[in-house]
């Protein structure tokens, strides 16, 4: 989990680690299952060392192992504000797949159409999972919105695969 995400999820109020995890689970729905709790605590420790988080020990829950309450320091608040204002977008690695097709065809390593079929199969499996998960979420929930994003991206990738199929079919029959 990215450090800034963890930091921003704590911006609402000082929280225990388990409260932070519950907030992430709510926002991510079924995708939150993939979240690694240990990783989150490692991130919290790093953020503390970097001076972006301050840790208090709460007296009221002294019997719990999870006694730490995490709060943003002024530096932490500053970092969250910068992160919110940042424009970033994950780049899907289309070039790698594209070059795989080009190289496979040029060297006769494999039929590009077979590679396209295999890739499509995998993406359709994911689309099936994402659609099912989306239908199981309540309308307009945080998790449903995230899953809709996944469905739309997969559709875009599948449309590109269709274009790949068309072009490589044409090249094969043309040569």
């Amino acid at each position: 989990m990215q450090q800034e995400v963890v930091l921003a999820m704590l911006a609402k109020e000082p929280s225990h680690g388990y409260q932070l995890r519950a907030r992430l689970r709510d926002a991510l729905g079924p995708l939150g299952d993939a979240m690694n709790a240990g990783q989150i605590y490692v991130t919290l420790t790093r953020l503390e060392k970097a001076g972006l988080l301050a840790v208090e020990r709460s007296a009221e829950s002294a019997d719990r192992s999870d006694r730490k309450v995490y709060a943003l320091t002024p530096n932490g608040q500053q970092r969250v504000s910068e992160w919110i204002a940042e424009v970033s977008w994950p780049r899907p690695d289309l070039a790698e797949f594209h070059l795989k097709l080009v190289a496979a065809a040029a060297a006769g390593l494999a039929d590009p159409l077979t590679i396209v079929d295999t890739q499509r199969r995998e993406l359709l499996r994911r689309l099936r999972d994402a659609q099912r998960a989306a239908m199981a979420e309540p309308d307009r929930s945080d998790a449903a919105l995230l899953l809709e994003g996944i469905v739309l991206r997969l559709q875009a990738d599948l449309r590109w695969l269709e274009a790949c199929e068309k072009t490589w079919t044409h090249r094969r029959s043309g040569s």
Partner: protein
Amino acid sequence: MSNAADMPVLRARGLRKEYGKGLGLVRAVDGVDLDIGAGETVAVMGPSGCGKSTMLHLLGGLDRPSGGEVSLNGRRIDDIGERALARMRRTVVGFVFQAFHLMEELTAIENVELPALLAGRSPRAARRRAEELLEQVGLTDRARFLPSALSGGQRQRVAVARALSNEPLVVLADEPTGNLDSAATLDVLQLFESLHGSGQTLVIVTHDPRIAATADRLISMRDGAFVDETRLSGGTTGQLGALVGLED
């Protein structure tokens, strides 16, 4: 096959359809073998002109093959007479088309009950069944509407209800979302998911990956033949995490 339960609902062997002759010969369907089990949803994808619609027509007896066999529940349909074939189409197969093909002068419920009436059910039984089906597709309040007063998605849901009228062994759908926008596609998609859940056997020919993704099995078709076949079931939501940057 050891018993009836193992028998595929739909079976094709060496299925072929050719048009024209000599240099103009087109092999639209070129040696297709297919077994569809009871309760299975199978999607067939492929570029335009790959023969997938023609194949669907052969499977449902809308068109005669140039060669090969088609059986429904163990009964050959490729070599039976016109009348027997017409009866089979009315009672054993349900069709869903891209352009809906509803009767424009009939209301939604009249469209849905028509196949039951043609199959010889009493008007009362046909009406009751049509009411159930419209409820199943969420259109009870549109029962008395003409198709022209319905949205594309609603029309396709009426068409699906009509296809189910005679409790067909198999529903064959040809680009069922080809004329629909994204929201209407979602309605039809949910309907197919629920049909699938209720054990209806479905064969869907489609361009639309969202519809294809509802299938248990996906077949890719090119130049009249199957080139790839795969099970789609069995994935995990865990893998989806990577798509949204949740896995490092």
